[in-house]
Structure formats: structure tokens, C-alpha cells
């Protein structure tokens, strides 16, 4: 997990060094948990 976070931080820094604002807008719009939230899941 620490490695994962460190890797992400490293990737993040490279990412911003390239072209942050434009890419941010592009990628954030696709950034979404694709998880089902079907009504009723979790009924006991």
C-alpha cells in the first residue's frame, strides 16, 4: 500500500510536470467509481 501511494505520488508529479490543467479537465470527467448502487442492495 505504501508503495502504491508512493508510486501514485510519483506518477502525479510527472503528470503535472507535463501539462496539468488541460489533462486534469480531460481525465477528471471520466473519473468515477463504476460501482452499482442499485436500490435495494444490502437488504437484510
Amino acid at each position, binding site marked *: *500500500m*505504501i508503495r*502504491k*501511494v508512493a508510486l*501514485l*505520488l510519483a506518477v*502525479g508529479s510527472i*503528470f*503535472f510536470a507535463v501539462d*496539468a490543467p488541460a489533462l*486534469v*479537465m480531460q*481525465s*477528471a*470527467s*471520466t*473519473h*468515477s*467509481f*463504476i*460501482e*452499482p*448502487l*442499485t*436500490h*435495494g*442492495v*444490502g*437488504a*437484510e
Partner: protein
Amino acid sequence: MESKTTTIQSELEAYLKKEGITINQFAGVSGVNSGTLSSIINGNRPIAMKQLDRITAGMGLPEGEFYELYIDECVVHSTPDWRRLGPFLQRCAELDKLECIRQVVQTLMDNISYAQALFETAEEFFVQGKRQAAAMLYEGVAESEKYQHSERLALCQYRLFTIALGKDQDANLRTAMHFEYFVERLDEVDQLNALKDLANIYASLHRWNRVEALAEEMGHKASIQYQNKYHKVSRRTVQKEPARPLCFYILYAHLLRAAVCDERGDYIQALHYVSLYSDFSWVQETTEEARQIMEQFKEWAEANTYLYRLMTGETKVLADYVEFINGRENEMVPGLTKIMQAANRLDFNVDEIIERFEPHLGLKNLKTRMGKLNAQVTEDKYTVLLYELAVYCLNAQKIKNGIAYLFQCLETSVRMNSDSHIVQCVVLFEQYRHLSSGEDQERYKILIGEVQKINDKKSGSAAGSR
């Protein structure tokens, strides 16, 4: 060095001497018959639970002061008698003296004949909500039966699974995987509930392949039991009724399978399952509970039809969907999350909707018409909502709000020990770090510190178990 072992008798005797009172006088104070007191002091009579509590109170000592000594005298150094042990365990559970329970269980389980009595006491504790005390007894019984393929062992494991579930997703996963192995050994009625509970936990962990398999199995087993109960010419005598009418398990299996299709983006198939759980033509049950179940599934079918259509890009259903969730507090979190997901994916404006529902947001215990909603699923759903709100606000350059939602999401994810949610939050923050304030960055540092602490702990325990 002590020359004499301390016993309850010696303590009582010393007390009487120190206070300068007679047995008769102490009998008046404690409410224990003087003859009984005399026999106890002379070691001719084992002490009953009520007498022990009265003597302790009479001596002005805290409740349960002599319980450790009592274990020594009545469990370790003499043949245990269930007439005394049953009430003793009950009192230990009431006073939360878990270490005493552990000691008794350890000693008793040398003799397997106590397993049934311990199991029955555990069931009583479980019903009374004394869950930690119950868990100790179940563990003892399960340990004594670990090489036997008994139904009682499976039931112990089921109870231990239920008791162990908490906020920590890692721990929940381990518990679920351990318990799954025992499901087949439960009786067929308990199997349905166990499959439902497991599917709910795997849903909260996003293990959708497992959810699908468990839902299929639950639907299959429930259909067979339904067939046996209502359609077979020679109906078997049903000895035990399931926790819910059988139709619930069949309908819920369809709903779970729709949820799995939702996750895969297969909304057409999801709508097919909706049609299955909104068809009640085959339902034979006529009880009020069954009627409530059908009403509930009808409502979910309506909600899920809106949301699956919305996810396919039919934004025209949005107004109807918003009206549907408005006033239905229990459907608000999943409903709003889906709306946010659709808005983030299809890029449309939902500012007004957020403004309308924001005052109602917050992590609450959600309910259905049949009872409560699984706590793990509820917390997970809420985390997803916070994340979607963060994404939406950040996309719209509302940085302050977006970061606030993101931090709430990260906090909940840390509390849940959810690696996947934490990573998602970190990725999102790093994308917007340059727009965040110094204060935000300080707060982020603290939250990441929490993540590190958890990981240090995990690394430590992993190293310890190597």
C-alpha cells in the same frame, strides 16, 4: 511470600475477623442464611452464584470481585457443575468480564460434553445482544468440533461471522472468506440467510463475481424450497421457517443479479432482472410481511428502472427520478449517487439537485420496509456518493467544495480501511493539488499520515505472522 492460597472462604473469614462481626450479623447484612455462610466458610458447601454476589455486596466490594477466585474453586479445582456455571457465565456477560468467560471456556472444553450447554448459552447471549461474550463461547464450541462436519459447527461459524463484521473492509473480507466454507453445512433454511448475508458483504467489498455466484445459489436453493413448500403433491413437513418469507430470497437474488449487470454496464440485462423481481404473479404467500416485501420490491423496481435508463444516457428520466427519491430518505443516497455518476459521465449540470438534497446528506442508518439495510453496504454507498460529489465539484472548478467532499470521502475510506477508495481519493487529490490551499494540503498530510499508520500496523502484523 504468601503461605496460604487465597480463596473466597479465606477472604470472607478474614473480613469477618477484621470487622469483628459474627456470621449471624453478616447474614443480616448480606441476606445469606447463616447456616449456608457457616458451611461455605468451613468448605462444606460450594457457593451458588446468587450467594457469591450477596456476599461480595455484603463485604462492600465491587460486583464480580471474586469471579476469578470462583473460577479457580468451582471450575479448575473441582468438577464443574452446569447449575452453577450457567448463571456464572450469564453474570460474567452482564458485567462484561470477558476474561473470566475465556477462562471458563478454556477449562470446560477439555470435556466435549459441555459443548451443547455452551452453545445454548451462546445462542442466548447472541439474542440478548451480548455479542462479545457469545463469540467466546462460539469459538470454544467451534474449536472443540473443528474436526467434525456438524451443523452446530457451521452455525457457530455463521454467528462468529455475523459478530465479526465491522467497518474494516480487510477484516470483513477475511471473515467472509473463512465463513463461506461452512455455508453448505448449515441447514437449508439457514443457508438462505447466510448466502444473503455473504452476498451483502461481498457487495460492500465490490466483489461482484462472488455476489453473482452467491445470488445464483440463493435463488436456486430458494426456488427448490418454494417448490417443495407450495407445489409438491407430498409436501414435506417444514420444521423451520426462514427469517423472511421464501419469496424474498427469490426476488432478492434477481435484484442482486441486476446489480451485478449494473456494475458491468449491461443495463439491458439489468432491466430484464428488474422485470423478474417486479413480477409477483407466482407468489403464494399472503401474509402482511409478504405484502410488504412485494411493495418494497415494486418500489425498488421503479427506482432501478429510472437509474438504469439514466445510465444508458436517457437524461429525460432525470426529473422523474429526482421526484421519486425526494421524500424517500432511504433511497436518497443511492439515488443521488447515481445521478452524480450520470452527471460526471455524461457531463450535465446538477447544481440545483445538489442544492436541494445537500441538507439531507449524511451517514445514517438506512431502512427498508422489511428492516434495516446492511451497515457495511450503507457506509460504502455513502463513500461512493462523497467521491462522486467531489469529482463533480472539481470538474466544475468549485475547488473548495470539491476538496471538502474529497476529504470527507478520504476520512470515511480510512475508517473503513478501504485501499481501493483511499487510492481513488489520492489520485483525485493529486490532480487538483496545485489548486488546493495551504490549509487543504496540511489537512491532506494529516489524513495520509493516518493511512501510513494503518499500513505500518498492517506491515507489523504481517511480519509478526511470518
